[in-house]
């Protein structure tokens, strides 16, 4: 025994060295998996298209912390189903669209739109259509649709009913073709009214339609005249648009920065890797004075994205009330995927033109780059922002028997301005 330990002592450094070698040989980590940059994975079959889509959703979708969809389970269920499909078989492509629809059906993101080959899937819209009180269902059988942009009843027909002095503008060309805007004074009052069909106000004002610019000049001139006693901003049926309109429009009603919520995005590849919450702030326009008279925002189930963000920002002002219906529920702003490594992406690169370098993808997912949380710490994504005064519109209350129309929501707004 003594000889044995003498032997150990003699070779103690060799033992130590061996110990180290074994230690580090055993310390290698398991292989670190890799994923491709968004839009870079080539796909020759449906399995590869599916894997690219599933992985990009896993990495780029920003609502996993609030979403109820079990995305791992989607992989378990649909990977073998896609493996049976042939990318170049039209019947299989129809099946694939159905599978994609089932996969994304419950997603919270109400901007979310999936464009698989030959398909169009918008889960939030599909869910809303199942609700009989959804505005599109309510007015789907309307006797006429006087709206110039083909949306709903409340635009130019109502202008004549409620507005005395007014100005209407329509962009007939360019990127915002058919954009509609109207500003005017509510008949018999000093209440100013503004409505527009999309958020492209700053762009139109700076280099777009002269008619839209005239509407906005009218609005700002009235606003700054000092005679306006109340303000109605009508974003019903407004599908959203450019974020810079927040400072352009709301920034003209405030004199100091207005925080109304927070945004966060992804900070890494993991499904729950998030950045901190950054404050959402409206910055006043240079020289703007605070509008302290009553403001009513009209919003409804077709007020989407920037229309909702604008509603929520204005709601943060002490003199604002929201009238109408709960908004659509798509609050998360979007930008290029590379800004946050999150949001919209192409998937399944099936072909690259070697002459032009242009890639053809099986599909595209349009999804928010950031998650929005209101100043009350609630996330309204997928739920919509509720009004202070809910006024449901029905065919009977809007389209009256004597071929007249009425706007109960605007009536409520005007009553609040009295």
């Amino acid at each position, binding site marked *: 025994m003594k000889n044995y330990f003498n032997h150990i002592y003699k070779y103690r450094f060799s033992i130590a060295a061996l110990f180290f070698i074994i230690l580090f040989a055993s310390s290698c980590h398991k292989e670190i998996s890799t994923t491709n940059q968004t839009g870079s994975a080539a796909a020759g079959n449906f399995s590869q298209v599916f894997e690219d889509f599933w992985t990009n959703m896993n990495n780029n979708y920003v609502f996993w912390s609030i979403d109820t969809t079990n995305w791992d389970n989607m992989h378990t269920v649909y990977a073998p189903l896609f493996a049976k499909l042939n990318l170049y078989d039209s019947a299989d492509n129809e099946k694939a669209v159905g599978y994609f629809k089932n996969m994304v059906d419950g997603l919270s993101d109400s901007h979310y739109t999936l464009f698989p080959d030959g398909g169009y899937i918008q889960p939030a819209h599909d869910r809303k259509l199942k609700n009989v009180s959804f505005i599109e269902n309510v007015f789907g059988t309307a006797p006429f649709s006087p709206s110039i942009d083909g949306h709903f009843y409340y635009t130019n027909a109502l202008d004549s009913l409620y507005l005395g002095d007014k100005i209407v503008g329509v962009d007939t060309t360019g990127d915002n073709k058919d954009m509609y805007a109207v500003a005017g004074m509510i008949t018999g009052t000093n209440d100013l009214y503004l409505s527009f069909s999309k958020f492209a106000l700053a762009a139109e004002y700076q280099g777009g339609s002269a008619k839209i610019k005239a509407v906005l000049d009218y609005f700002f001139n009235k606003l700054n005249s000092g005679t306006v006693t109340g303000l109605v901003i009508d974003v019903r049926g407004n599908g959203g648009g450019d974020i810079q309109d927040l400072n352009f429009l709301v920034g003209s009603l405030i004199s100091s920065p207005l925080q109304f919520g927070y945004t966060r995005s992804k900070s890494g590849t993991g*499904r729950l890797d998030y950045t901190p919450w950054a404050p959402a702030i409206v910055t006043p326009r240079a020289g703007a004075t605070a509008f302290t008279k009553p403001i009513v925002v009209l919003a409804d189930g077709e007020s989407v994205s920037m229309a909702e963000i604008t509603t929520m920002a204005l709601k943060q002002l002490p003199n604002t009330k929201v009238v109408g219906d709960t908004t659509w529920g798509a609050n998360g702003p979007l930008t290029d995927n590379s800004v946050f490594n999150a949001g919209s992406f192409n998937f399944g690169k099936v072909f690259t033109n070697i002459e032009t370098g242009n890639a053809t993808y099986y599909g595209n997912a349009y999804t928010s780059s950031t998650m929005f949380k209101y100043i009350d710490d609630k996330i309204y994504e997928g739920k919509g922002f509720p009004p202070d005064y809910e006024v449901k519109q029905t065919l009977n209350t809007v389209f009256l028997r004597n071929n007249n129309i009425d706007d109960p929501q605007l009536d409520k707004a005007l009553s609040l301005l009295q």
Partner: protein
Amino acid sequence: MKQRLQQKVAYGSAMLIIAICCNTKINAQFSIGVSAGYTNNYLLTNVSNLVSTRYNALPGFGAAVPVMYSVTDWFAVKATPGYMQKNYQMQRTDFYQGVYQNNTNGYVQLPLMAHFSFGGEQLRGFVDAGGYAGYWLTAHVKGVMPNILNQPAYTNLTSNAQPNNVFDEYTPYSYNEKYQFNTTKDNRIELGLLAGAGISYQLNDAYQLFGEATFYNALTDQQKKYETGQVPRYNQTYVFSVGVLFNLGKSGYQ
């Protein structure tokens, strides 16, 4: 394969320690002390799918209370319970230069190791090898990111200026805040291996000064297994420390 190798290492280590402890010519002594030093941690992961993104090592500090039981003049068992920062940085590059996040992570951990020494009476070299268990105690994040809902004030001026950087298009948001642990995602228990080398100087019968470089290699993912196809993250930490050991007593016998 890896598990069997680790089992063999553990078995071999145990046998070696038992064999040494069974040696009748031992000269056991117990020491306790303090040490502190500089840490440099790197997060081993893969972010190749993220545009213009990389991870960098960041420095930090650590402090410990080393406790050593010397079995012979060349072998001891050592534990160094203490606190250690394992910091790292996420950095965006190219057009996104300026976007970053420094993660400051505090761990309390208990390293346990075999300590082999060699050399003269006063100045000796040593190597350590062993394992450790740690708990992710604190986390703090500091950084800058684009703020999508904080646009510059609107002006009527149009500009054709090209953006050179993301912050020509977005207002930067600087943050410096406590990280809220996520019970679904964050794995706060860390297990790993360590290896180190250093020199010690025996000041007198009671005090010994030492300096050491140690490498801590985490074997557990910083995240719980919460998603399919998860990309793991491992801390790899170099620690350069100095300290002093106080000899509590000698119990040599034959």
